[in-house]
């Protein structure tokens, strides 16, 4: 079973404190390649959530049988096998969805987030907690990639949710800037992704620093306040 505190700490870690993209800075390769629009970012994250939950639960259940010395090759084996099985099952049974998510699933194999969470969390924790960790790490990735993709798309071509019609044929992308917007190529190319990701990391650090400052200020300690300036 899981306590409330445990749940909150796992969720908080995944979504903000240990956010894969803006705190751990992991998995940059698929991140750069995919976030040319918000829809792609969201789709990659959804596929990652599925794979991370599965690999975390598999490793957590088998963790007592895996000798410490060979844990890394075994983890790689488990993750690679699971990703491939998910890829095959999607292709065979959910072909429509596969056409949308399919190109992202092989990208996940190259994503070190999966192995990192397996090694850092699932290898030491029970299956339920590990599954939640996988899901929330993925949710953290989801909002960061959606935001990054959305920003790149808006700056680069003036639209939002381009390509949504490939997922939901009834929906149309939103044209936020006028049609005459000339586009800003840099935002769509990898350097643009690095620059915007840098801005997001700076924003997170600034938020954290501000929160820390506030926490410090709350109980007014007279001595510290006097020596502040």
């Amino acid at each position, binding site marked *: 079973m899981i306590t409330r505190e445990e749940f909150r700490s796992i969720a908080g870690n995944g979504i903000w404190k240990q956010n894969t993209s803006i705190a751990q800075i992991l998995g940059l390769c698929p991140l750069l390649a995919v976030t*040319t*629009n918000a829809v792609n970012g969201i789709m990659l994250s959804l596929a990652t959530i599925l794979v991370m939950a599965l690999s975390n639960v598999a490793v957590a259940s088998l963790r007592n*049988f*895996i*000798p410490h*010395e*060979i844990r890394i*090759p*075994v983890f790689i*084996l*488990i993750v690679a*096998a699971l990703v*491939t*099985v998910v890829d*095959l*099952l999607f*292709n*065979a*049974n959910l*072909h429509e969805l596969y056409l949308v998510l399919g190109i992202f699933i092989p990208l996940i194999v190259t994503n070190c987030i999966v192995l990192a969470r397996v090694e850092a969390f699932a290898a030491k924790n029970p299956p339920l907690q590990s599954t939640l960790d996988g899901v929330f790490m993925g949710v953290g990735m989801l909002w960061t990639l959606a935001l990054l993709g959305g920003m790149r798309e808006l700056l*680069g*071509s003036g639209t939002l949710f*381009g390509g949504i*019609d*490939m997922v939901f044929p009834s929906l149309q992308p939103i044209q936020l800037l006028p049609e005459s917007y*000339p*586009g800003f*190529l840099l935002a*769509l*190319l990898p350097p643009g992704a690095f620059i915007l990701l840098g801005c997001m990391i700076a924003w997170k650090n600034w938020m954290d620093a501000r929160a820390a400052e506030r926490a410090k200020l709350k109980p007014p300690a007279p001595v510290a306040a006097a020596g502040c300036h």
Partner: protein
Amino acid sequence: MSAAKEFTAPGMAVRTAGILFIFVIVFTGLLSAAYLWTKPAIEASAAEEKMKLVNEVLPHTEYDNDLLTDTVTLPVTPELGLADPSTLYRARKAGQPVALVFESTAPDGYAGKIRLIVAVRANGEVAGVRVTQHKETPGLGDYVEVKKDKNKARPWITQFTGLSLAQVSDREWKVKKDGGRFDYYAGATVTPRAVTKAVLKAVQWADAHRERLFAEGVAQ
């Protein structure tokens, strides 16, 4: 637990190797099982995908044979930019040649190769062209792909439809910037130029080889 401590160093190594071996067997087995179990469904949907693509370049009503079986395997064909053998489909109606459907590659896209599927009618007319694979810049050169083209009513790639070398000479078969007759969007010329050239080559190639291709492997 206590049993593990009794192992000597080599014994430990053998035990670890044994465990790794078991994991490899189990997960490779899982992988093989999943592969074999999903194979028929995946092949069926791949064939369906192919037909969908063929239907986009050549309307289903124009032919009555089974395209997926009436094929010729093309060897490496430099004229079409094909570096690997590929499959050519022959469309017939009541036994008469209707069109050839084949792959072609533009080697000189802005970001590498642009793969196309082209259907050329027996009279030399382009029945349709679609881009199947490319790495052109998103939002700039990728309008050669119908899905990415903002002009939904008349996507860029459809302007080749219905044209043949009899109507448009090879000197005119260029984008407007190069003195030809085909439109392009400002900002990305390399991509449409590469596609236009590849379509021209495909039409020329089809004209040169049509009779041989339709006759090949047919008993009567």
